[in-house]
């Protein structure tokens, strides 16, 4: 996993609440057995005028000019700004895979759904929760300012606006450490392999019904 320390990225606004993972990556693309290549189908139903199919060449498909991420000024965006309960619904990790493949490395929202929030960290995407008034102010600035960028400083836990105003955010110490170092969770957990084995052996004796073969 890539390390996440500091990002200076173009911001794209997605002004909706309750954006669900079905919208982020529709079901037909979940048939892939790979982790990559979902970017061209991120937000497929909103982004294109036709119905997308897996494996198809997306370059010639008619795009919806009204969908915000199709606007020229937001091309190359790395920070997604959105509203409450982003990533609700299905647990599909294809959603963060699609967003990452599209180019987003940080998502700023008023709140996130739990499973999606968790899935982001496993892929080096930083989900940032900010208060509603700060989100509202950011939407106003982004929409008014072509080329609007934000600095996301993970070490300082601050989002810095172009006017120099910094908005602090919270993150669990353990998750921060993993992101900053680009650590692989499985490797970390396996450092405790002996403890897991001991726990399992005790359990096998105290609750043998859990270990049907």
């Amino acid at each position, binding site marked *: 996993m890539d390390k996440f320390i500091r990002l200076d990225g173009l911001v794209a606004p997605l002004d909706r609440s309750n954006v669900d993972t*079905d919208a982020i990556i529709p*079901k037909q693309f979940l048939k892939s057995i790979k982790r990559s290549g979902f970017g061209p189908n991120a937000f497929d139903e909103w982004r294109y005028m036709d119905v997308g199919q897996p494996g198809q060449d997306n370059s010639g498909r008619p795009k919806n000019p009204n969908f915000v991420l199709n606007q020229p000024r937001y091309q190359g965006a790395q920070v997604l700004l959105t509203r409450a309960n982003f990533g609700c619904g299905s647990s599909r990790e294809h959603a963060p895979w699609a967003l990452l493949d599209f180019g987003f490395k940080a998502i700023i929202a008023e709140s996130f759904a739990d*499973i999606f929030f968790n899935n982001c960290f496993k892929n080096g995407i930083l989900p940032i929760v900010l208060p509603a008034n700060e989100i509202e102010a950011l939407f106003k600035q982004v929409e008014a300012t072509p080329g609007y960028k934000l600095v996301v400083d993970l070490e300082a836990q601050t989002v810095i606006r172009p006017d120099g105003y910094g908005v602090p955010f919270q993150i669990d110490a*353990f998750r921060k450490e993993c992101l900053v170092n680009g650590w692989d969770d499985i490797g970390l*957990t396996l450092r405790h392999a002996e403890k897991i084995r001991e726990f399992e052996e005790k359990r096998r004796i105290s609750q*043998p019904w859990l270990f049907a073969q």
Partner: protein
Amino acid sequence: MSKTLYDKLWENHVVHQEADGTALLYIDRHLVHEVTSPQAFEGLKLAGRKPWRVSSIVSTPDHNTPTDHWDEGIKDPISRQQVETLDANIREVGALAYFPFKDPRMGILHVVGPENGATLPGMTVVCGDSHTSTHGAFACLAHGIGTSEVEHVLATQCLLQKKSKTMLVAVEGKLGKGVTAKDVALAIIGTIGTAGGTGYAIEFGGSAIRGLSMEGRMTLCNMAIEGGARMGFVAVDDKTIDYLKDRPFSPKGDVWEKAVAYWRTLHSDAGAQFDRVVTLKAEDIRPQVTWGTSPEMVVAIDAVVPDPAKQADPVKREGMERALQYMGLNPNTPISQIPVDKVFIGSCTNSRIEDLREAAHVLKGRHVAPTVKLALAVPGSGLVKRQAEAEGLDKVFIAAGFEWREPGCSMCLAMNADRLEPGERCASTSNRNFEGRQGPGGRTHLVSPAMAAAAAIAGRFADVRDVL
């Protein structure tokens, strides 16, 4: 000190804890299906790792499998590849149980686990599927995970977790005629909102919940995720234990007795403190119908489509306007005047035997309206299907004009051929009414099985209490 059920389940699984409270939780049961596992098995192989405990795995394909013409196999080559990949992965690593495509016990994982006794009280149950919360009906700590976590559980038998806040949702009183667990679930989501449970583990309690069957409790816990909570659970009682007795993977003999003694402790202690308590009166809950594109956009059958003009919050108002436009509905239209094109009875929410009985009870001696293009009944598993056929329910569905299909996830998420066409409106017993969920441009209204049956007969939404 008084403990909540969540405290007890949590403490029973902590292997290790970091300074910031992040814990390593031991996983007892790992449910695996074809859509969210291939990348996990591949990751494991690429890293040269072996699965930690394959006897924790119960697996079946469900999302992609067709519900008709099984003799022709899986026609969509990409779907077929995904199912064959699961076959190959399980063949290579092993499992406690694998029910491949067309196996008599194949079905939706969240139906298959409990009916085989593979879901037992006090377990941690995970699956790369958000509706894993279903298993909370058995006082399990059960929730959906992403594919990276599927790989993590395969490799380590553990998950990294932080403890959630706790919410008690108490439904007190007696549910009225024609009001089911689905209506309770939708009424709760309508009350707390789709993000109301975010960050919480929900315990469902109160006399109305204790009055529900295990099937009803599964429906309720299944929908916890639509209220934002990754997990929802119900304490163990006699119904839990009676349901599990003599299931294939349930313990037997002395071990059964020992297990039951432990299971009896799986309830919140008197005086246990919750971070939030929500109370509903069972008598206030009427049959529910969603009108929008989020499960919280829900009203009772005798209500009208809400008017965004009456919503003060501009963000919410815009959301309502967008939903009404997508759904092709006008404010203030009575719900009972909305016609339906298709009806779907199935999904991990409502495809168990009790659901099929409730729908069949309404359908008996009646026929689907001529304006309804398709009415599908999709049992949750091969075992449910056979049980229903033994009771003659299939004949009731078929005589009423329903198609009686093979088990699978089907039109809940439309990964197989069962789907809505753009603009089609469906009365569906599934769990999500998101844009495009049942097919691009499709319009989903979530209802109970009995309400879906009533809608099929009337050709529009109808109050099932009038036909019972």
